[in-house]
């Protein structure tokens, strides 16, 4: 008889794999991808494909050249590519999108050891790099989605520019806001995957139902921004109306549901997650109200990413029956 396999228990495993989790995230992002394509035109779809392809290629080449195990099967590069694309204006030149993908995968993820070891969210960090690099050109060129909605045309960079709702909400700004219904459906100026709150919330519900994420981070993050906004509604808005505009604007939904919940760069325990999300909410609010940028979701998540090791240290679980340490 052949030798038997020896291993430490358990001898059965659940079917869940890293690739399976990532596939769930991809599925959860599909509604937003469809919404982005409907709202901003076919270029949104192609831009997403470009980001996904360049993220996967960057990961493959890095690992291949350094003779590391190939990990593109785990689909994490696909998630990064989709999230990066969703955080870009539809008119951004493709070469900039590719540059962002390379930054996300090589600089933020692989140089720190690959999946599980990066301290900051790759898509968020790459978005910020692009945002700062191309601040006054492609990264702030918002087209008017009422002109592209349902047209399925190629979104054109020459199209009339439009202000994002957040810019309009900024004190001292003129311009008009879309209706709240349009905000929910995403017919507003912004990045391709961030505007349709409805699609993002659908994806979020799917992720919570599949137990991929817990509700703590999205709910606390959004609720913090909502409650703080209630307190500072400027003249001309009711508190409720203003706070609702705030949570439906900009990258809050995609940030709270898909970016701040990234396992690697968020705390482990529920308490840690709540503290993390509170921090994200407060910083987002502060930047939106008092900062020089209209939007603060990316910065808030990146900043809180850096605090995760400390939050983890301060918020361990309480072992059942564990004696107090001397």
């Amino acid at each position: 008889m052949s030798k038997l396999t020896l291993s430490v228990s358990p001898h059965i495993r659940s079917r869940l794999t890293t690739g399976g989790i990532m596939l769930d995230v991809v599925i959860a992002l599909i509604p937003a991808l469809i919404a982005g394509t409907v709202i901003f035109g076919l270029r949104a779809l192609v831009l997403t494909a470009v980001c996904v392809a360049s993220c996967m290629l960057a990961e493959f080449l890095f690992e291949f050249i350094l003779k590391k195990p190939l990990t593109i099967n785990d689909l994490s590069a696909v998630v990064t590519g989709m999230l990066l694309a969703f955080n870009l204006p539809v008119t951004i030149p493709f070469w900039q999108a590719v540059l962002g993908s390379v930054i996300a995968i090589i600089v933020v993820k692989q140089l720190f050891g690959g999946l599980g070891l990066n301290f900051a969210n790759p898509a968020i960090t790459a978005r910020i790099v692009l945002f700062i690099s191309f601040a006054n050109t492609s990264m702030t060129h918002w087209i008017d989605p009422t002109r592209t909605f349902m047209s399925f045309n190629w979104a054109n960079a020459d199209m009339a520019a439009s202000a994002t709702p957040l810019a309009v909400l900024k004190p001292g700004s003129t311009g008009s806001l879309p209706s709240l219904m349009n905000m929910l459906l995403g017919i507003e100026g912004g990045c391709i995957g961030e505007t349709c709150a409805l699609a993002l919330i659908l994806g979020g519900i799917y992720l919570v139902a599949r137990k991929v994420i817990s509700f703590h981070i999205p709910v606390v993050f959004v609720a913090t921004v909502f409650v703080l906004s209630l307190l500072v509604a400027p003249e001309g808005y009711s508190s409720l109306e203003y706070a609702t505009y705030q949570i439906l604007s900009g990258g809050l939904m995609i940030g709270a549901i898909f970016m701040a919940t990234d396992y690697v760069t968020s705390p482990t325990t529920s308490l840690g997650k709540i503290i993390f999300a509170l921090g994200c909410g407060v910083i987002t609010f502060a930047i939106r109200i008092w900062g020089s940028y209209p939007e603060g979701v990316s910065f808030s998540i990146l900043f809180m990413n850096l605090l995760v090791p400390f939050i983890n240290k301060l918020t361990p679980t309480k072992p059942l029956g564990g004696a107090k340490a001397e």
Partner: protein
Amino acid sequence: MLPKLNGVTLPHRKNTAKMPAVKMTPPRLVTIPMNMHIGAPAVPCVKPGDEVKVGQLIAEAGGFVSAPVHASVSGKVKSVAPMLASTGTEIMAITIESDGEMAISEDCVAPDITDYDSFIAAVRASGAVGLGGAGFPTAVKLDVKDTSRIEQIIINGAECEPYITSDTRTMIDDANLIAEGIELLKKWLNAKQVIIGIEKNKPEAIKAMSTLCDDTVSVKVLPSIYPQGGEKVLIYNCTGKIVPEGKLPIDVGVIVLNCTTLAFIASYVKTGIPLVNKLMTVDGSAVAEPKNVIVPIGTSMADVFDFCGGFKEEPHKAFYGGPMMGIAVPDLSAPILKNTNAIIALNKADSVLPEPTPCIRCGKCVKACPLKLMPVDFARALSVKDVEMLEKRKVNLCMECGCCSYVCPARRPLVENNKLAKAELRKYQAAKKEENK
């Protein structure tokens, strides 16, 4: 309402739940190790060539925390020599060649029990150990000196591991023995409250045990969330009590006894036949005819599998106990032990070792841990030998139930990590103690 403890939902695979145990034909040879319990190994008191009968003492308890060992077949002692145990260490074992008679020793007479002390002495002489799998000498557990300390006795019928149905069959087929066992507990340990904890996936066993309920005896139906049978989990779910670190259940007024252990004690008190047979489940994807079998202790796994129709597929892995905590064996010569409640053999596909991928810090291991530990932190602390972190995060409390490894999407060997981390911590604490001296 108590806050719920975490755990995992497992496939039940209780294929043998409806099969009453059948008695195995006696094997030609049995190999009985001396360390079938926690504590000091038993000390052989026979030599090669001696004639022995079933139930005859062949090794005496090696200390207070120990248990005597008895012959499981009649025949001739072939050898008293070290063997390689499944743990990888050498252990003394007595090999007996069976004469096929299964003649019962004249020493087997019902013990004379008149008081608490003689009850404990009888349990000690019976060779009883925790039959749920832990193998802790039962007499030591029951020897609480002052029975007024006992507030509750929990009968563990949770049987939370997949495949295993031996406790289920005991509760159904030997309900009368459990009833007699409970009477013994009432009489000699002054048991004021007896709780029989059973997972809800065993309706027949729950029905059988419910017939025993009275003012002192109750059945607690537990959710089918692994590991309900873990001692601390069971105590919490049956009484709401938490056993503090470094303490025993009796320190919170609780004794936990496995239902099969209790049935055995009742049978011993009646017949005087010590622990020489074991009811166990034989199952797994490689086994031709899964069964519940009553097997003489020391029978080789190979003989038991043969009795169950051999293999329908070549076995690539075999282990004692269930798939969550079972101990894998290098070959099928491994003997059945006192605390063996199942032997499982898996086919090639089920034996493939998972390929670990990088930890993505999803925290699923933390959410699965019934004791609220953080395996993700243990793994990281172990990799950088941060023993103080291991101590702070209480890796010592880990009972190695397997939930963390089971759920890990990156297929990381978390239980293995925890075992290594516990060993590392023990080394560190021993060194610290030495320093303080």
